[in-house]
């Protein structure tokens, strides 16, 4: 029995360790690389000083940049990438459409509207208030898009078109809110943030992003088998013993919370939820027991790399991270479209 358990655990443990090492390396890279590159040993010293008070002698400015700016930023990028990739996996499974992704389905746009409404109208306020607003907006837009797609006949194309309609509607609402209520400086800040921007990230953001993503990951791992059972549709899942309504609510809830949190922290970053799960299906297959952890890891690493790229692409300028992900994601989206045509 123990030998049996061990034979199961061995690959799981191996992959777990490999994943943790990859993620750690990506985080260290994300912290070291930037406009002012920091030598690796400085990075390790600063981390040691903070984590267990090692008392190494390092430059105070380097230490400040690293600990107060780059590390939280990198950690939020990781959490955000994982969260968005997981949201993509969940949506693709539930709506049974390879093109489903929080950005394309208008969930991100709705979250943006909610967050902006809270900010400029002064409802609630604060980070939690903004996240709550984003959550309300995300839920509303998702409901509208799914209902519209169903009313239009429920096909794959209908869903994507409904997503476009939803995105346009909520982006227009956001613009309206900004024009009506924000002053010029606020407006510019909001617009920049909406394109996806990690430059304002500090430690309090980390304490929101990481727990949300980890909870989302736990829900997705727990329901991985249920997501597998959705392969042939909800009725088929029900006949396989899945409590369809409950699973849908849990998964949609987790997705909406993750997307809303990420949008309220860093704006709307597109294509991660689309491209990462798709790429991972090639590597680990379509079964969610593997796809979920693999996508979370790949999403985290991808967004760290995208963030580093956004910082060093144009010297002296930070390109919004949403622009970087779109530059990679849009061709990826095209590839998925073409592949789907071949399969149909």
């Amino acid at each position: 029995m123990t030998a049996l358990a061990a034979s199961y655990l061995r690959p799981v443990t191996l992959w777990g360790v490999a994943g943790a090492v990859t993620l750690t390396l990506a985080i260290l890279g994300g912290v070291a690389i930037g406009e002012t590159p920091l030598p690796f040993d400085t990075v390790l010293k600063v981390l040691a000083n903070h984590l267990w008070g090692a008392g190494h002698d390092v430059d105070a400015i380097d230490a400040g940049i690293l600990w107060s700016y780059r590390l939280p930023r990198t950690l939020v990028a990781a959490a955000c990438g994982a969260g968005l990739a997981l949201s993509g996996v969940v949506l693709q499974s539930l709506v049974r459409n390879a093109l489903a992704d929080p950005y394309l389905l208008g969930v991100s746009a709705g979250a943006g509207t909610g967050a902006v409404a809270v900010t400029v109208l002064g409802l609630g306020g604060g980070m939690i208030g903004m996240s709550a607003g984003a959550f309300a907006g995300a839920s509303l837009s998702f409901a509208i898009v799914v209902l519209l797609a169903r009313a239009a006949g429920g096909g794959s194309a209908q869903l994507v078109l409904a997503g476009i309609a939803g995105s346009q509607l909520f982006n227009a609402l956001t613009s309206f809110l900004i024009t009506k209520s924000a002053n010029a400086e606020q407006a510019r800040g909001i617009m920049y943030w909406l394109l996806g921007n990690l430059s304002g990230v500090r430690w309090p953001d980390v304490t929101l992003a990481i727990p949300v993503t980890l909870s989302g990951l736990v829900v997705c791992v727990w329901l991985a088998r249920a997501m597998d059972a959705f392969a042939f549709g909800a009725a088929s899942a029900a006949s396989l013993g899945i409590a369809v309504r409950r699973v849908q609510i849990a998964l949609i809830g987790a997705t909406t919370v993750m997307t809303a949190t990420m949008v309220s922290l860093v704006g709307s970053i597109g294509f991660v939820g689309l491209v990462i799960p798709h790429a991972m299906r090639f590597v680990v297959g379509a079964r969610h027991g593997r796809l979920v952890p693999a996508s979370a890891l790949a999403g985290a690493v991808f967004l760290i790399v995208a963030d580093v790229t956004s910082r060093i692409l144009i010297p002296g300028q930070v390109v919004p991270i949403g622009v970087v992900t779109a530059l990679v994601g849009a061709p990826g989206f095209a590839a998925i479209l073409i592949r789907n045509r071949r399969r149909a």
Partner: protein
Amino acid sequence: MKLHAHNLGWTTRGKTIVDDVTLDILPGETFGLVGPNGSGKSTLLRLLTGLLPRPAGRVHLEGVPLESMSRRDIAQRIAFVEQMADTSEALRVRDAVELGRTPWLSALTPLGPEDRRIVTEALEATGLAHMAGHSWSTLSGGERQRVHIARALAQRPRLLVLDEPTNHLDIHHQLSLLRLVSMLSVTVVMALHDLNQAMGCDRVGVMENGRLIACGPPAEVLTPARIAAIFRVHVTPLRDPDDNATLFRFHCLEDHS
């Protein structure tokens, strides 16, 4: 496994699709459901497996009301193969059949050796063992149908509900499927298109406009007069000298009026 349906009905958007069906399925029997397109066969099968919301009437599974059982409890007893369930997931044949183990596994337990054995057996029973690694998108309609049957077998149900299982199969696979089904020790309820195939069931039920209008041994139920009235075809029963089985030959009603 004994199934009892009492005054079962289903209405959607003011239209009654299944109307007041009372039916007993006996343990071990093979029950065929026939009727014209749109007569409510698929809907009745979904009602019997508890898949439709807000049904009228009740279904009891071995004396236990279906609505008091969890989906998982039901899935450990009843497997259901829908008409034409498709997926865009890049699944392999074996993955799809492994889905049948879902009701027997908890969230985090991986498939055990016993589960793998059951899956392999299901693949062999449906003649798919050599295709286990093929991907779903490369399969023909008939192969897909057999994968669904294999998945249902891997579920190890005591009641197997099949909706027009022979629909996409060539004649060889139609016959081997019906033979497989008749050899299983489980109770089978299936909707069938082919009245000659229905003749091979222990009992048949005839649906018309959502009502179960006749139910009993095939020779008693599928009379030429009834077939003419329901299916609007004229039949000539023929006898196979080999085994004295009755076969139907169909003609247009117009040619015989």
